[in-house]
């Protein structure tokens, strides 16, 4: 079967069908809804800019730092969860056995969503009134989105793609809860393992995030999300 698959995928004539395959692939995964969700969640950066930059009484207090910090955690986690959940395959073992070009299709699908998430986030964050002195919100959002997407894909690989929100959102919840419990000047210096709460100038946090991203991404591209058979809950 492997030989047959390789033959089909290497055959230049069959190869021309990749765009068609890609369209079928993304349609089967409800990718348009995922794209809409990614754009919707990322555009919250723009929608909530005013709310996160000023308090109700017009002041510029610690609450605004908390709000912006919270958005830098919650929105990347939500985008990563959507990407992770859209990795779920409705066909499971059948597709894995018979499908061709799956790694390429997965790359195109996840890459498209990721680029969309990064692009919209970045564009809207450029218009931000940052209340985080010395911190570039775009970099924090980028690092968190990459690392959290990696962790979502890892959960999807080992548990179930439909619960891939578990890890990114748990990380975001911890970071947000911590930021609300410590003095405002210590917000950007959590313990080293809480990489998503670090300042973007902390190189270790980038190292951890990129390791998770590469590991999750590579595993997903090679093997795909785990098949959770219909009988299981």
């Amino acid at each position: 079967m492997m030989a047959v698959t390789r033959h089909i995928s290497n055959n230049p004539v069959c190869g021309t069908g990749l765009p068609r395959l890609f369209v079928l692939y993304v349609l089967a995964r409800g990718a348009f809804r995922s794209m809409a969700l990614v754009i919707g969640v990322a555009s919250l950066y723009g929608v909530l800019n005013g709310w996160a930059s000023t308090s109700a009484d017009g002041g510029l207090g610690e609450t605004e730092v908390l709000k912006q910090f919270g958005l830098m955690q919650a929105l990347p986690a939500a985008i990563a969860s959507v990407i992770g959940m859209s990795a779920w395959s409705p066909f499971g073992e059948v597709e894995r056995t018979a499908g061709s070009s799956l790694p390429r299709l997965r790359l195109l699908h996840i890459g498209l969503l990721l680029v969309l998430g990064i692009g919209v986030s970045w564009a809207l964050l450029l218009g931000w009134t940052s209340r985080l002195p010395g911190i570039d919100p775009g970099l924090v959002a980028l690092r968190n989105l990459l690392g959290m997407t990696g962790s979502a894909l890892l959960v999807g690989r080992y548990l179930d793609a439909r619960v891939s929100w578990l890890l990114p959102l748990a990380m975001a919840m911890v970071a947000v809860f911590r930021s609300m419990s410590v003095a405002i000047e210590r917000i950007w210096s959590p313990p080293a393992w809480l990489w998503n709460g670090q300042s973007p100038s902390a190189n270790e946090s980038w190292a951890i995030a990129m390791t998770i991203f590469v590991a999750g991404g590579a595993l997903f591209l090679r093997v795909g999300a785990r098949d959770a058979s219909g009988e299981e809950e």
Partner: protein
Amino acid sequence: MTTLSPSFVADTPASRITQPSAPARVTATIRSFLMLLWLGIRRSQGYWLLPVMIGVGVYAPSIGHLPDIVLWPDMSMATLQSYVIVGPLAAALAAWLVDRDRRHRMRHLMESTPGSGFQRDLLALGTSSFWGLAGYVGVAIWFCGQAMMRATWGGPDVGLMATGAMGVVAFAVIGVLIGRLVASKFSPLLALVATFFLTIGTDLFKITADDGSILNPIQLLMPYGLSSVNYPSVFYRENHGFATEVGLWMVAFVGLLVASLAVLRIRNAGGWLALSGMLLLAGIAAAPLINPPLNWGPQAWTPIDYTPVCESRDGFEICVHPAYESELDETAQRVSSTFGPIQGLDGVASTWNQVNPIRVRDNQEPGVIDGVGQQYGLISSVAAIFPIPGDSSQHGQRPAAQVVIMEWLVQQSSLGPPSLVGSGWFGWPSEVSVSPQDYGNEMTGIGQDQTEMAAFQPRMDAAREQFAALPENEQRVWLEANWDALRAGELTLEDLP
């Protein structure tokens, strides 16, 4: 369906075919429901969530609650606060479970069976509540274990912990509702985000009345919001019954949510009647909580009696709450080194008492320590000696000479970090003008002129270092001679030695 054979019907008198009695039917229904529930609990993936619930649930509240001194009130509150993590995860699990018929493409099949849809929703609710409560109990065991081993004061606050447990169940019902209304693989995500927002939304959307009382319904009605308002203290007790009032409200809230769930499936008069009844009950239960003047503010506290433990050192008498006895020695040392140079001068107390931090914020009185065992504990004690001149208090400004002496005093205990100096803890020097500041994005305010301040700061640092370099007796002589003028704010930087 099997039909009775004609011979059986013919041989059996009608009186011998009996229906089970009503109580027996109820028992059988409950028994079968519990058996199904147990099946659901065992077959669900909830156990995957347990490590996350317990791990994150213990870590998150520990950040602010595991200091050197462990108090039962803190541990009870930490347990309650873990519902911020456990509750949303239970809600996500509930949304996941309730959507299973659709996910397995069995919705139409299940709808054609005689079983009640509401019962299946209740099974999802029971299963997710079970795993949520299991996680919550795990967290509670950890925090209570810490308290049992190390606590120096108080006892477990069962009402507080039970409130958190009710919060977990309430969130599970919200999860079921979201899962029923939004039939999608994204519904767990939505449930998690929505319920997490119900916990922290409190701190992000502050709505307060003119007198400072809180009007945000999320803050007033959700356990986390209540926890940030009613923080338990070793000094004061809340007058209104936290356990009874909030407990009643949470029960009514869960009842209201379950009734809404029932109406989604059973749209008959009974369903609507149950919903309106629960709405009424929840309204009655919420009324005392959303009426701020009754419940919030200092009038709602009763002091708890205690015998302070005291230590005399260098002519000072330092007293702390017995729960903080292990910190007494360090506190006494800090008080004596900070206030030693100005001992006996006007306005400097000889007896120092630890008080409830909340009280210090309201009225600054002499001889008060608020943060025992904390780095910044003596800031407000020093500030209370130097009243801010009335005309500039609106911008927190005071003469630079005062700021310099105050910063020097705090440095005496050598426990304050170097960053303490110049960070504006004691207000800004009135020599630097305030000006309208443009923060961009059409936001303006009144603030310290940054360039002017940067130019002025070195002068203050130099004055402080110069004063610190003087011999002790010369410092004392200068302080005694200029004390009243310094406190009245009449001295400038040039008047310092």
